[in-house]
């Protein structure tokens, strides 16, 4: 047991390490950031939602930095695109932290976070289940189509076009800014990295080649989450350093073990299981919102 100085509660060190290690393991295995599992898991463990969201961001920063260190050696970061996305992300996270603080003040933060998770977990869960179902059905072209880029998108028609040599693109700067903004805002409110939204958006909307997508998205996630940690520390004082250190330790070890094991493993089944898990978690969020509460009143005091 260790007492968390900001959350003002004692937690079981082993339990937190186990949970963060488990989430890290999954993320290493499947190749997702894991923030969207970590934050709800912390909330279920009794950590106040604002602390869970703000502290989770620091763990995502750690994971994405370690990812970027390996990705840059393979020259797979489009720095121009990364900076542009990060600029959008910075604006988005400033707005997100501001919104977070307002919602916290209004007592509606829990509702908004629940609703966003409900939609997000259901969406990602469905995608995962569907994808692995298609692969399982016979590895046809259908499964590969996820990686096939459409010919032309809205990004090519908007004004303020710019060249991105690393990605071989000549597109408008507005879509990357907009995508970065949305991811930054969601990141601040939900305690997620947003890679699993960012990567499809980069492939489908921006037509970026897949070999630079992961590195570039990691770069954007690193910049955004780092900024969020600093902003949350200054604005809402909900970042718990002790909890953050525990999450980083567990997450980093888990991610390595997961990546090792995942290298020689087919991930379709895992994806299907995780997808089902996410759908179940999403159903739980929905259930909590729809079912009549036994306690009609809620306190909006210390948190």
């Amino acid at each position, binding site marked *: 047991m260790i*007492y968390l*100085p900001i959350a003002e509660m004692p937690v079981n060190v082993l339990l937190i390490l186990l949970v963060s290690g488990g989430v890290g393991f999954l993320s290493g295995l499947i190749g997702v950031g894991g923030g969207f599992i970590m934050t709800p898991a912390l909330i279920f463990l009794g950590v106040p939602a604002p602390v869970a969201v703000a502290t989770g961001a620091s763990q995502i920063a*750690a994971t994405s930095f370690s990812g970027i260190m390996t990705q840059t050696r393979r020259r797979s970061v489009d720095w121009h695109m990364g900076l542009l996305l990060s600029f959008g992300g910075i604006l988005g996270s400033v707005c997100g932290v501001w919104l977070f603080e307002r919602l916290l003040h209004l007592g509606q933060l829990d*509702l908004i976070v629940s609703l966003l998770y409900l939609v997000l977990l259901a969406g990602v869960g469905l995608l995962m289940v569907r994808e692995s179902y298609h692969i399982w059905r016979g590895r046809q072209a259908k499964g590969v189509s996820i990686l096939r880029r459409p010919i032309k998108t809205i990004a090519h028609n908007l004004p303020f076009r710019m060249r991105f040599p690393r990605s071989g693109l000549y597109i408008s700067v507005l879509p990357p800014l907009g995508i970065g903004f949305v991811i930054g805002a969601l990141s601040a409110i939900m305690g997620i990295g947003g890679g699993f939204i960012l990567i499809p958006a980069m492939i489908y909307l921006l037509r970026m080649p897949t070999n630079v997508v992961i590195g570039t998205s990691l770069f954007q996630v690193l910049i955004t989450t780092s900024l969020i940690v600093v902003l949350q520390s200054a604005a809402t004082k909900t970042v718990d350093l002790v909890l953050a250190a525990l999450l980083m330790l567990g997450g980093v070890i888990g991610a390595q073990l997961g990546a090792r094991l995942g290298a020689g493993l087919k991930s379709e089944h895992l994806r299907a299981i995780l997808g089902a898990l996410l759908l179940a978690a999403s159903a739980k969020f929905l259930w909590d919102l729809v079912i009549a509460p036994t306690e009609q*009143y809620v306190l909006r*005091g210390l948190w």
Partner: protein
Amino acid sequence: MRRLAALLALVLICAPASAQTGAPTGPNVADLPAGVAEDSITVSSDYRGSSVTVFGVNPDRQGRGDIVVVVRGPTDSAVVMRKRRVFGLWVNGDPVRFSEAPTFFAVLSNRPLRSIASAQSIWRYQLDPAASAQLASAVPATGDPSAYRAALVRLRRAQGLYQEYSGRDAPDRPGGLTMYEGGLFRAVVRLPANAPIAQYYADTYLFREGRLISAQRIPISITRVGIERRIHDLATNFGWLYGLITVMLALVSGWIAAFLFRRT
């Protein structure tokens, strides 16, 4: 333990002296001999809550009267919201603000409080948590102010922040008021880990036939020490720096992970 014994001795010595000064003339006379075993509680990284022990002596030689012990945390504003159904979803609505509500409140008495003090006295001396909460905003037309007050008490009680005991402690839960021979009493209050870290007060009251005879207030300070204190001070006073340190920690741990990953 030695400290506890010394305190007990002190209380016992003081008791006859104050009894000789004559019957207290009115309420709010700070002459009830009492003390706490732990006047400062420290919170370090292994903190899991603690307990406060209040000792005292009934100055009445015949042992007449009733003892009430209240341990109070600082007051702070609180908002209670009521869940409403909007488009099939239950959302928080109808907020009611209390300008002052105790963040921690434990009341112990040798028999049920209502039979010791009148409702007016309970209200006047704020002997129960509901009496200590000051309503600040208008209650919505559909709501009932006493329901909000009751909800506040119920929710905080569920968190262990509001406690009420009458009679001696039950075997299954610690805490309670025990009376000993010669008018000595001992009250044990369990402070849960979620109780705010602040200045507390232990108040002891002697009631006789529903009237307050004498009272005493003893401060108890709860403070962070060591690393807990440093982290908390940094986070509250230098939020930007604290955030930067957290980010640096994230970068360093990420770098170490990447480094280890490359090695093996």
